């Protein structure tokens, strides 16, 4: 398995190179004046601009290989370029948003996956009973409901009416503590840093801001995970070895939890991978609704503004994540089902 993992990592630079060439080629299909929209992103900024001077200043009329050469040369020296849409270097833009995205993903993935599996198993066990019907209706509605509408409802109820879960990442008071010189940001994850700094007000405030996005994500993704779990579980429960276990007198709880559930998880792991990738890649709509500044917002902003350094940086980040998560999924298969061997 170790060899397999090393091999996968060795391929990584080639894949990243391919991705950058592909993305860069697509951007270069646009003319220099079109790409100038990176620097002038609003009609109001047109006043007084000498377009040709700007094209020349940013080297937009240079041959594509020179422009790519400049960019890749910088990358090899650790400089991923300047992101005009973020107003900071690309690496800073990604790394400054990554903790927010990671924190949301970490806290969302557990309730989403565990809750989805739990509901899916319950639904399968109570197949065609009242509980199963309710869960199926709720999951169908949840999956087909637009995320932004659901997010707005969550915000309206839990913030607008109850005042419990405000938007953003931190309230003004907690943000002031985090900004203070005494507060050390070890990880950039507010909950963890709050604990490490013994600032429990920050921890509580961070949770208050995380719950809205998590609830929104959970409802949407539960619907998906529970449906996969349910159908996989139903199939497993019909297997001969389950019948055998029951015939041997094994307790039903043990049959479900030990024999059936574990075997039903393979398809769940397959869909959980892309789900985690989606969470780590940023969830644009949830981030927008809750004013949560993560990577999703940045990716959308960079694409909209044709910020090629930003787009390339985000593309490399996604590619890296994709490879990493697929690898984790492959390894998980082997852990869940010992019959699977990675060569």
């Amino acid at each position: 398995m170790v060899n397999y993992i090393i091999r996968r990592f060795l391929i990584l630079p080639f894949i990243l190179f391919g991705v950058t060439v592909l993305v860069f080629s697509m951007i270069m299909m646009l003319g220099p004046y079109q790409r100038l929209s990176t620097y002038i992103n609003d009609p109001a900024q047109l006043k007084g601009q000498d377009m040709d001077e700007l094209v020349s200043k940013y080297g937009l009329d240079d041959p594509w290989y020179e422009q790519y050469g400049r960019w890749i040369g910088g990358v090899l020296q650790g400089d991923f370029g300047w992101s005009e849409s973020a107003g900071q270097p690309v690496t800073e833009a990604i790394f400054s948003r990554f903790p927010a995205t990671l924190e949301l993903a970490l806290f969302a993935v557990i309730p989403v996956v565990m809750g989805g599996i739990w509901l899916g198993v319950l639904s399968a066990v109570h197949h065609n009973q009242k509980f199963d019907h309710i869960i199926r209706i709720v999951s169908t509605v949840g999956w087909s409901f637009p995320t932004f509408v659901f997010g707005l409802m969550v915000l309206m109820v839990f913030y607008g009416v109850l005042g419990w879960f405000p938007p953003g990442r931190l309230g003004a008071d907690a943000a002031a503590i985090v900004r203070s010189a005494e507060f050390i940001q070890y990880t950039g994850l507010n909950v963890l840093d709050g604990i490490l700094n013994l600032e429990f007000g920050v921890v509580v405030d961070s949770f208050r801001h995380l719950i809205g996005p998590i609830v929104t994500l959970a409802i949407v993704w539960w619907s998906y995970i529970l449906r996969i779990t349910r159908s996989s579980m139903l199939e497993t429960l019909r297997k001969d070895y389950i019948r055998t276990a029951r015939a041997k007198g094994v307790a039903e709880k043990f049959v479900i939890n030990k024999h059936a559930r574990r075997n039903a998880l393979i398809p769940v792991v397959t869909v959980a991978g892309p789900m985690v990738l989606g969470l780590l890649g940023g969830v644009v709509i949830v981030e927008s609704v809750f004013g949560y500044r993560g990577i999703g917002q940045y990716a959308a902003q960079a694409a909209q503004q044709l910020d090629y350094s930003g787009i390339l940086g985000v593309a490399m980040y996604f590619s890296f994540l994709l490879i990493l998560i697929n690898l984790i999924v492959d390894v998980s298969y082997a852990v869940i089902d010992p019959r699977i061997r990675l060569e």
Partner: protein
Amino acid sequence: MQKKLVVFLTLLLVVSVFSVVGAQEEVKSPDTFTYVTIGDQSTLDPHFAYDTGSSELIYQVYETLIDYEGESVQDFVPLLSTEVPSQENGLVSEDGTEYTFIIREGVEFSNGNALTPEDVKYSFLRGMVSDRSGGPIWMLYEPLFGAGFAGLSDVTADVVGVEDPKQLTDEQAEEVLAALDEKITIDGNEVTFHLAAPYPPFLNIVAKGASWGSILDKEWSIEQGAWDGTAAEIADAHDPVKEEDPLFDKMMGTGPFILTEWVNGDNVVFRRNDNYWREPANFKTAIIRNVDEWSTRKLMLLRGDADMIYAPTQYRAQVESEEGVTVTTGIPVLQNMNMIFNWDITTEGNNYIGSGEMDGEGIPSDFFEDEDVRKAFSYSFNYQAFLEQVRMGEAIQLRGPIVDPLLGYDENSDVYSLDLEKAEEHFRNAFGGELWETGFTMDLVYNSGNDPRKTAADMLKSYIERINPKFNINVRGVQWSTYLDASVRGTLPASFGGWLADFPDPHNFVQPFLDSAGYYAGRRGDTYKEWAAESGIDDLISEGISTTDPERREEIYKELQQMSIDHAIDLWIDQPTGSNTRRTWVEGWYPNAMRPGVDFYSMDKVAE
């Protein structure tokens, strides 16, 4: 159990939909002011900034020599100077070419450095040396060096014959620095600006709200790596790339606030400058938060977590009747919107003009050179419906490029109105009657997402196609990048434009819109440039800016305004008015058309 849960959730939903979300009775976070808006900032360097977002930040930290008095955009009060220069107090020379500012003593930058006349001189010289392409510094060059001077390259070309300041030798740089140096002189505690010719709006150019008039701490700026004041460094300091500009993300001003945090696109945090030379601000902390989603901004206002928000016209009704919310509308905005007719359309590779010929399947390059065509278009626009339905009554019709209430604006001057009979008459006369017979096909293009522009284009299509079935207009929405590309190439037959005042003077509107060297002349093509020079427009504009007699100036600007209508140079659409949405507990807010956004210093939060 399940029934109870369903009942609870239903109740919760009903309450959420129908409840007026708690107007907070007490002032929330009285020491903090939070403004929640959209958009981001480009830079913190006052000499680089040329966008409202950046200027809004710079406004809180840096100060200028003079400020506007209250809501006025013509009356001033002293700020870092002790008096507003005028001929009455002897601080403006009789010929109107020398402006002297007496620098206030006892003022400190927030790092404790004392403000000196040397800081003032350095600030303006540094601006003129850095002079980034497409930046705002042309506004200093025109009054100091005269018409035709728009940047350092014009001075280097004039003084040493080198067009690119980055190519200056050391000797040439010394000559250039001397030329700049003599324009701003220090005598004791007085700083005098020596203008090339009288320039009536000069005080507006250096007044608060104009980031380029900000006074920097020379010592601190040099420590950060900004221009060191020597000739040898001119080439390096000129036209910086934004990310390499030393003052891109740093500020050090004399103003009421100190920047604490700037996370572009997310939030900006200021803390109070407790050593401010006037009374310290009412808030310990002031925050600008960027929240793109309207519903979130609305909830933050209603919950009292935002003291002021940006509320677009179409959504404002959702909050204006809420308890604890105050909305002010009809705020003057010195901005206009028009449709620019391209008098000289680039035909090569142009897919917006059909065949490119007068054959009914397209339009020729000189389509809009014909005055009858422009007039026919001007009579085919429903201005009233646009103002009422698109702007929801929050705009007035333009009467030429000059906006209300600037000199030359006359609310009784001639304007176009929807009149399809007159439109038909002009279409019949156009191109000697040929256009009426052959018809035409063209595209009207707008940048996707800009709904007012789309509606304006749809309106023209609807009315013009009614006049003659041979007239065809296709309304096309394109990405901003494509729109920009087409604008620069001159392939758009007509494009939308607008101008937000740099300084409140009619010159700032007639020059870009009407002058043959103006920005929009470039969008109309060479034919227009020749016409503007021959028709006397250029001469009138030159006279207008160099005349100090207000009555003569008014005559000139009225004449230019009338010419822009008589010749239907563009389709003059509207001047929007602004609004402000805030909690009722906010006191001290007042509008000023030249202020870029909020002024935290003027406000307080007081229990209702």
